């Protein structure tokens, strides 16, 4: 249809200017003149895995505090700084990273850079604001607890890991949120919010040289800090299947299994991504993706085995790109009137089958096409493009995202089959059930 670059080809690596300032700040700029917008993301290599005992949830709480005004942005002027330019802003904390984003009209570029520079070294941590935010965060935690699948995810993750700090949830454990102090928050902020632990990404209708000058103006004055401590814990290999069962009032049963999986830099990562796509349809590598293009899963193995047969109302898989080895998740909602045991029987039989018999060339061809499309959908718009650059920079280097895309044609049936056999072993998995006990839910309306 119409003009295209090379028809159907995977896009070549984008033109990204990578610079490191004297203070260690990594800067990635990509010009994209399709809309009069710019997206600025500031990334820190600090996530929930970097939290010590008693401080679970501190990274996320710090993220919240970093929207509360700075030495040069009074508290009451935070509101509207970006909205005046029609923009949106946000932040998130995950296991390996914390990220802040503004996307707005190009006129706001300097404003966005100023905000991120302020956030890096001038946040206030007013004790009253810390206390007020404590209850906001506990409210966020309790909202999550209302969701049985989220509780199951926490329990299964905490069971799958014995030592590695990926075991605790990003939101933190309630006891830590109740006892943490303002100084704990501020200390964490000072330790990790330094230019040599950060990546600034700018994508949009910008001029690279001018943007780099403005970045130097705003960030060049910030001093480097001592290199932050890094997690060195290596999770011991799992040798036995583990199980958790949550019996709680509710209406619906949920099944989940997690398998220890390779880090994003491991050569087995991409083959295992193919395994997931064959089981569940390709969901891509953008955990932010605002567009929400549904996963093409109706011809996938687990969907046909479980959902089409009426045992489950949904099934999904997730292999997330992470710095250290994380988990491959398969999750399913048991259909009303069906049983956890029936879902588990079919699920485990399918997982055993792919581990034993491998995959076919036709399946690899299909999911390769799905992943190729997914890379296109996941790069629609300045915000998502900038997200992918920064996200990968915090776990492995931004080029890896494009390398993975370029390697799609080379992944072989044997590699995919080998990944299934290596990771989808019974002794590598933790299985979790939510088993509704007794009456749950609201009384149905008349």
């Amino acid at each position, binding site marked *: *249809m*119409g*003009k*295209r670059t090379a028809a*159907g080809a995977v896009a070549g690596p984008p033109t990204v200017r990578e610079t490191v300032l004297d203070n260690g700040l990594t800067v990635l700029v990509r010009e994209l003149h399709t*809309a*009069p*917008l710019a997206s600025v993301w500031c990334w820190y290599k600090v996530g929930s895995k970097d939290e010590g005992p008693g401080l679970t949830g501190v990274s996320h709480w710090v993220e919240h505090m970093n929207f509360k005004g700075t030495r040069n942005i009074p508290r009451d002027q*935070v*509101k*509207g700084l970006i*909205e*005046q330019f*029609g923009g949106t802003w946000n932040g998130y904390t995950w296991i390996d990273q914390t990220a802040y984003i503004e*996307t707005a009209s190009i006129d706001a570029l300097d404003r966005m850079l100023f905000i991120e520079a302020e956030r890096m070294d001038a946040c206030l941590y007013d004790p009253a604001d810390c206390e*007020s935010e*404590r*209850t*906001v965060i506990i*409210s966020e*935690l*309790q*909202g999550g*607890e*209302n969701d*049985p699948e989220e509780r199951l995810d926490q329990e299964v993750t905490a069971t799958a890991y014995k030592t590695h700090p990926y075991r605790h949830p990003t939101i933190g454990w309630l006891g830590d949120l109740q006892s943490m102090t303002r100084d704990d928050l501020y200390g964490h902020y000072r330790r990790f919010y330094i230019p040599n632990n950060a990546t600034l990404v700018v994508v949009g209708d910008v001029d690279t040289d001018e943007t780099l000058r403005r970045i130097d103006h705003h960030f060049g004055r910030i001093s480097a800090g001592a290199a932050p401590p890094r997690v060195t814990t290596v999770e011991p290999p799992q040798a036995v299947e583990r199980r958790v069962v949550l019996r*709680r*009032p*509710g*209406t*619906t049963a949920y099944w989940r299994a997690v398998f220890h999986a390779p880090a994003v830099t491991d050569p087995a990562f991409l083959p295992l991504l193919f395994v997931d796509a064959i089981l569940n349809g390709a969901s891509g590598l953008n955990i932010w993706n605002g*567009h929400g*293009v*549904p*996963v*093409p899963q109706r*011809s996938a193995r687990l969907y046909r085995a479980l*959902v089409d047969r*009426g045992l489950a*109302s949904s099934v999904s898989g997730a292999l997330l790109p992470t710095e250290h080895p994380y988990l491959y998740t398969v999750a399913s*909602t048991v*259909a*009303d*009137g069906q049983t956890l045991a029936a879902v588990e029987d079919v699920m485990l039989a399918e997982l055993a089958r792919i581990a034993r018999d491998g995959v076919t060339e036709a399946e690899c061809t*299909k999911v390769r*096409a*799905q992943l*190729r*499309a*997914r890379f*296109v*959908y996941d790069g*629609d*718009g300045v915000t998502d493009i900038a997200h992918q650059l920064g996200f990968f920079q915090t776990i492995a280097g931004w080029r890896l995202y494009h390398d993975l895309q370029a390697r799609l044609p080379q992944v072989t049936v044997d590699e995919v089959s080998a990944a299934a056999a290596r990771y989808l072993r019974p002794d590598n998995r933790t299985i979790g059930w939510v088993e509704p006990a007794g009456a*749950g*839910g*609201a*009384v*149905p*309306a008349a």
Partner: protein
Amino acid sequence: MPLSPHRHILPNGLTLIVQENRATPAVSAVISIAAGAVDDPPGREGTAALAARVIDRGSTGLDAAAIADILDARGAALSVSAGRHRLAAACTCLAEDIDEVLVLAARVVITPEFPEHEVVTRRAELVTDLREAEDDPASVAVDRMMAALYEGHPYGRSPHGHVASVERIDAAALRAFHAATFAPAGAAIVLVGDLDAARVVEVVERAFGAWRASARPVLPVPPSPPPGERRLIAVPMMDKAQTDVAYGLTGLARSDPDHDAAWVMNNALGQYAIGGRLGDSIRERQGMAYYVYSRLDATIGAGPLYVRAGVSAANVERTLASIDDEISTVAREGITTRELDESKRYLIGSLPRRLETNAGIAAFLMEAEVFGLGLDYDQVLPGRIAAVTAGDVRAVAARLLDPAHATIVVAGPWAGTAAAGAAS
């Protein structure tokens, strides 16, 4: 950059809108049909919702597996959803696949078969979703609020149905629903992406041109006067960690002359930055909630203007008092000049972001088509927002915002006060 959509009406009455956008080698397509939950037969609430789940599970000569294979082999996504008034089939695919995807979409929309076994399987999925929603305080709060605020009105009927009503829907009911509501006149297709407008018109004409069907007349939405009194309904879910509040008022229709003023007013009340005035009070100053916001659901008829918040049970009364206070203040005084300017600048300034991606442009053009806002709505919208005055906002606030007519549902570990009506 202003949009430059092409609008074309096929001889059978189907409207086609095409916007070229070469930013990525992909296409977003939305097909919108004038068939929604308002068309659900009495006692069979959830018919449109179930039709959306089954419609792409079989068409003449293609079973569900064959349809899935065609889409999945291309990494194309097709998702069908039913709203109150319209059913939408949204497709995302690579540009090279748009012809095949459109041909398939036409078969799905025009000649669905609703196979018996598929109806049984997808009905059980919908029932599972309904059962999950019964255990979710946020869903419970909104559903009960809508049922009470719009008692006796089509908007008071759940668009997803109830377990009992859904279990009464069979294949014959879905086929009857399709026959009664699906027709090219009143339907619209929006295509946005890396495509050639002239050529894609031909593809759509080939795929949809033979569609001959007429639908029963669309009934006007009855008026929805505000309830005569304030109601507070507690739905105790004592095993939950947090309560969800849904605080509903009757809003206005998208075509109401006061719509744009209400849009600006709602932005200041419960949207701007983190939740406008409501967010300032309940989240920022009082630290009671992770989320609090208001939403204006202006559609064909007067949908609700409602506030949502998730708070600890201990803070329910204080939250309701704060919402009452903010709403009363805006009703009495309107918003400040600064708030007016900020919200207007935001709504105008955010337009380029809304129109950045294929999916964003498609949603915008479809909204303009469905509500008759004009093919140049992206160009007239800034002027319409800019023209809203403080007096307009004050007038619409006085018209819509009145705590004395609020319908409030609190779902979660809160058993209510003496003033709260018992839920049953």
